[in-house]
C-alpha cells in the first residue's frame, strides 16, 4: 500500500534532480525576497530585527506558492496524471507522495537556509532556533494546503494567479502562528504554544489535504 507513496516520491525527486533549476531557484527566490526588504525599507537594525520573523515567513510562503502551479500541471499536460488516476492505487496515496516530494524539494531547503538568513537580521540564537523549528513544522502544511489549490485550479487558464488567490487566505493561520512563535520567544513569552499549534495544523493538513486534492483532481480530469 505504501509502496506507491515511495514510488511517487522517488519519481518526483528524480525529475527534480534532472531539472535542478527547481530546487536551487525556490531557494534563491526565498533568499532574494528576504534580501529585498532591507533594500525597500532601509538599513536600521532595530527595525529589521522586528521585521525578521514576518519577512522570513512571508517569503517562505511566497516561495512555496510559486512552485505550486507545477505540482500537478506538468503531469496533467503530458498525460501522466491520467495514468496515475488510472493506476490501481487510491489517488489520495499518489497525492500524498507528491506532497511529500514537494516538501522535500521546496520546504526542506528553506528550513535549512532560514537560520543563515536570520543571522543577517541579527536575531538571537534562541529566536533562530525557534524560527527554524517553526519553519520546519509549518512548511509541510503549506505544501499540503497548496496541493488542494493546485488541484482545484488545474488546467484553468487563470493559472498561477488564481491559485494564489485561493491558497493565500488558507495560509494565513500558518503565517500568524509561525511568525507569532518567534515574536513570542523574542518577547520572552515562550513560543511552545504556537509551535504545537503549527504541528497540529501540519498533522491535520497532511492527513486531509491529499484526499481533498485527489477529489479535485478527479474533477479536473473529467
Amino acid at each position, binding site marked *: 500500500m505504501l509502496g506507491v507513496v515511495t514510488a511517487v516520491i522517488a519519481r518526483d525527486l528524480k525529475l527534480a534532480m534532472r531539472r535542478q533549476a527547481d530546487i536551487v531557484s525556490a531557494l534563491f527566490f526565498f533568499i532574494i525576497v528576504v534580501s529585498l526588504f532591507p533594500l525597500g525599507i532601509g538599513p536600521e537594525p532595530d527595525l529589521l530585527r522586528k521585521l525578521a520573523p514576518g519577512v522570513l515567513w512571508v517569503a517562505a510562503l511566497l516561495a512555496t506558492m510559486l512552485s505550486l502551479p507545477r505540482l500537478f500541471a506538468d503531469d496533467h499536460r503530458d498525460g501522466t496524471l491520467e495514468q496515475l488516476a488510472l493506476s490501481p492505487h487510491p489517488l489520495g496515496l499518489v497525492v500524498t507522495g507528491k506532497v511529500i516530494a514537494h516538501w522535500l524539494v521546496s520546504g526542506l531547503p528553506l528550513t535549512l537556509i532560514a537560520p543563515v538568513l536570520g543571522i543577517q537580521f541579527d536575531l538571537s540564537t534562541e529566536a533562530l532556533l525557534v524560527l527554524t523549528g517553526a519553519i520546519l513544522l509549518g512548511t509541510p502544511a503549506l505544501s499540503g494546503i497548496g496541493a488542494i489549490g493546485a488541484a482545484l485550479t488545474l488546467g484553468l487558464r487563470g493559472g498561477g494567479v488564481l491559485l494564489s488567490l*485561493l491558497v493565500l*487566505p*488558507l495560509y494565513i493561520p500558518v503565517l500568524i502562528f509561525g511568525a507569532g512563535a518567534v515574536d513570542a520567544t523574542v518577547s520572552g513569552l515562550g513560543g511552545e504554544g504556537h509551535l504545537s499549534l503549527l504541528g497540529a495544523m501540519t498533522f491535520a493538513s497532511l492527513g486531509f489535504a491529499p484526499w481533498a486534492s485527489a477529489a479535485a483532481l478527479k474533477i479536473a480530469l473529467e
Partner: protein
Amino acid sequence: MTRRFNLYHFASPATFYPLAGALIPWFAAASVLFGLAGLYLGMLVAPTDFQQGEGYRIIFIHVPASWMSMFIYLVMAFWAAIGLAFNTRLSGMMTQALAPTGALMAFLSLWTGALWGKPMWGTWWVWDARLTSELILLFLYIGYMALVAAIDDPRRADKAGGLLLLVGVVNVPIIYFSVKWWNTLHQGSSVNLTKSSMAETMLWGMLLMAMCFWMYAIAVAFARVRTIMLERERHTDWVKAILAGGEK
C-alpha cells in the same frame, strides 16, 4: 429515474423555480418591514451611547452585515456538502446565487467597520485578528467566485467550488472567536442569550435590522438562483415551456 425524482423532488429545479418565484415578494416585504421597524427603533428612538456618542448607531448595520457575511458562507458550505454528497443540481446553483450577496455583506462589514473605526480608534484600519479575518472572508468569497467563473463546464464548476467552500469553512469559527482568542481592539460579543449588556431598545433595533438583512439576502438569492436555473436548464422542457409562455 422515477425513484430519484421523488427523492429529490424539492431539490429539483423544476419544482424549486416556481416556489422561489412565489416566495420572493414575501421575503422582500418582510425585509422592508423589519428594516423600517429596526431603523425607527435604532435611529429615532434609541438613546445615545454614553461612551461612543451617536457614532455607535453604525452598529445597526455593521453587526447585521458582519453576521450575515459569516452566516451566508456557512449556508453555502452546507449546500456544497449536500451537493457533493448527493449530487443534487440545485446545490451548486444555490451556492453561486448566494456568493455575490455574501461578498457584499463582507464588504459592508468592512466599510461600516472602517467608518466606525475612524472616530472610535482614530484610524480607518488596524490589523487585528477580527478585522483581518473578515478581510480574509471577503477574499474567500472572491476566490470562490473567481474559481467558478474560470471553469466553463457548470457541473465541474459546482464540484470544484463546493470543495473549496468546504475547505474554507474553517475560517468562519476563527473570525467569530478571534476576539476571544486574541485580545484586540475590536469589541467582544455583547449579545448574549442570558444577560445582555445592551440597552433594550438598542438590542431590539439590532435584532430587527439583522432580520431585515436576512430576509433581504434570501430574496436576492432566490431571484438570482432563478436566473441561473433558466440558464443552466435551458434545454429542459420546463424551461422551454416558460420561455414559450412568455413569462414576464
